[in-house]
């Protein structure tokens, strides 16, 4: 539901049903609400059956890339005699995104169930949940829930008396956006600097500690017990016309709207309904200027483009952006687009792991150029220079952090060029003091 707001009639409440309900956090409370039935059912299936069911559901990764989950699991080799690992990505650091936090805060046992099912499906006896260091409250709640799950036999060497072993270890991050990138995350668990790895090999073949591994987002895994319990057909039925985008998606909406929060919608819902009906639209007397629909790493949409967008994987691409993590950042007519694009560039410069030249230099240099434009010292050729830099930062690096920095810059210059030119032509007071 639209936590922290009451559920909106246009929402489809599955994952967020118990947000705000503190009793659902306990093992007993979860069981009373039908919890752990999904895991019990899964343990009676074969791993292949689980993978087939998840494949048939059409579930796609909710962490940003939208890769089909069942397919990802099917790449993990079978009976190869090696240890396998399931890793849950709870690093949630993409600006605009705050959904995994609520899943962990309110339905920790739902996540544990999803992790356990996925672990069993890929033949992993030990799973790790990597939680960003700043998530102190989710950490406490997840720790308590894991402990409880062990006490009740939902984890350990004999899960619900089936003789199967599933262990879960929580691993705390320590402040690094890049550790959300799956291979950086694996390095981080291994006790290394969080540098992304060159792919291939993909984690399914050589992941954590060099072993076959599947990395999945919190929201992806939280959906799994529902799919197992209610069946793939139920999930594919949650669809508004596009069979490639099934199920529900938590949309984190923030910035200049009346009711920021998490709204759970069936994929295919018009973006306009999320923005205006659920989140209440702009503040009184204001007009929406721009929407970043999928976390800060995707191209910016104008208000007009956003209004015409169908909110599913393909729909947002057709509108010229990406669904990403579905962290929707809304900016109204009070926003200085140049300043906020600079602020995003600064974010990527700060978070670059610095192993690729294009990224290390490109993010820092782009930030400096944007700062100088804002200080009133921009040069006429600066916009072309920024675009040229962005071109060099796209598709040329080990991971896509570099591309992510370029996305708001390129779309921003294209769609809000007038605001950049106002600084360049000194029609606007400098927003930054020259350094």
């Amino acid at each position, binding site marked *: 539901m639209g936590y922290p707001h009451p559920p909106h009639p246009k929402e489809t409440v599955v994952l967020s049903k118990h947000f705000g309900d503190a009793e659902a956090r306990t093992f007993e409370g979860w069981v009373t609400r039908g919890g752990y039935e999904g895991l019990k059912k899964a343990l009676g299936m074969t791993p292949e059956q689980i993978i087939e069911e998840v494949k048939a559901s059409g579930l796609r990764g909710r962490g940003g890339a939208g890769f089909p989950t069942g397919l990802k699991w099917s790449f993990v080799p079978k009976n190869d005699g090696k240890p396998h690992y399931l890793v849950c990505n709870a690093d949630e650091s993409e600006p605009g995104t705050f959904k995994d936090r609520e899943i962990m805060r309110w339905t920790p046992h739902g996540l544990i169930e999803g992790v356990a099912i996925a672990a069993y499906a890929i033949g992993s006896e030990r799973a790790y949940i990597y939680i960003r260091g*700043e998530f102190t409250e989710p950490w406490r709640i997840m720790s308590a829930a894991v402990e409880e799950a062990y006490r009740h036999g939902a984890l350990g060497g004999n899960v619900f008396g089936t003789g199967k072993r599933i262990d879960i270890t929580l691993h705390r991050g320590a402040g690094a956006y890049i550790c959300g990138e799956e291979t950086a995350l694996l390095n981080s668990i291994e006790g290394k600097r969080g540098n992304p790895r060159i792919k291939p090999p993909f984690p399914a073949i050589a992941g954590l*500690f060099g072993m076959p591994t599947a990395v999945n987002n919190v929201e992806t895994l939280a959906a799994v017990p529902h799919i197992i319990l209610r069946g793939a057909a139920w999930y594919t039925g949650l669809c508004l016309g596009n069979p490639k985008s099934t199920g529900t998606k938590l949309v984190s909406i923030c910035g200049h709207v009346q009711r920021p929060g998490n709204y759970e919608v069936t994929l295919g819902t018009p973006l306009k309904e999320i923005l205006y009906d659920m989140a209440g639209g702009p503040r009184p007397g204001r007009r929406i200027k721009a929407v970043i629909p999928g976390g800060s790493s995707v191209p910016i949409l104008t208000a007009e483009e956003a209004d015409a967008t169908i909110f599913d994987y393909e729909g947002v691409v057709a509108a010229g952006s990406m669904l990403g993590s579905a962290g929707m950042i809304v900016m109204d007519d009070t926003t200085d687009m140049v300043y906020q694009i600079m602020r995003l560039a600064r974010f990527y410069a700060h978070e670059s792991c610095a192993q690729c030249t294009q990224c290390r230099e490109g993010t820092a240099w782009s930030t400096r150029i944007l700062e100088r434009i804002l200080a009133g010292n921009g040069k006429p050729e600066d916009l072309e220079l920024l675009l040229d830099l962005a071109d060099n930062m796209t598709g040329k690096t080990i991971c896509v952090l570099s591309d992510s920095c370029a996305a708001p810059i390129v779309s921003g210059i294209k769609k809000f060029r007038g605001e950049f030119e106002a600084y360049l032509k000194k029609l606007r007071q400098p927003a930054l003091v020259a350094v």
Partner: protein
Amino acid sequence: MSDTVGAPRGPQRGASAHGGHGTEADAAYQPVFVGETRAKLEKLFEQYPTKQACLLPALWMVQEQRGWISERAIGEVAEVLGLTPAYVKGVVTFYTMYHTHPVGRHFIQVCTTSPCNICGAEDVVKAFLQHTGCGELGATSADGRFTVIEVECLGACGFATPVLIDDDFHESVTPEGVPALLQRYK
């Protein structure tokens, strides 16, 4: 992290911060990994196939006990995990949440990334700097009570402005709310 902006190391401040050892070299170093802490770490070893994987957890244990991670502590962690101090240092400096210098008794992290920025996060930072007496980012107040830094997205953008004070996560902090909030941290 590349060594650019905003990382919570900042210039060295506080009585014992001279290149990280200073006074510490004079006093006898009290090891962290003894007794209960040692037992906690040993228990963690069982959950990973390598000792090295316990590096981040071990560093957290140091910081929880000592407030920051000194050169001597880096040496101890290296020894306990069978790594070299240089390697451990390389990892410590990658992650922004580890302090390689002493910080105030209460460490305040304010998000100023775009989603919070457009909702007034920079004014919240100003209020913290003013009411803590820190004056500037990364500096510790004269009474040693506070250090304030700006951080990137805290993953709570719908609750602008989120602020992390020590291990307490505060949502929807406004400049007006800062003085009352600070009262809770002595």
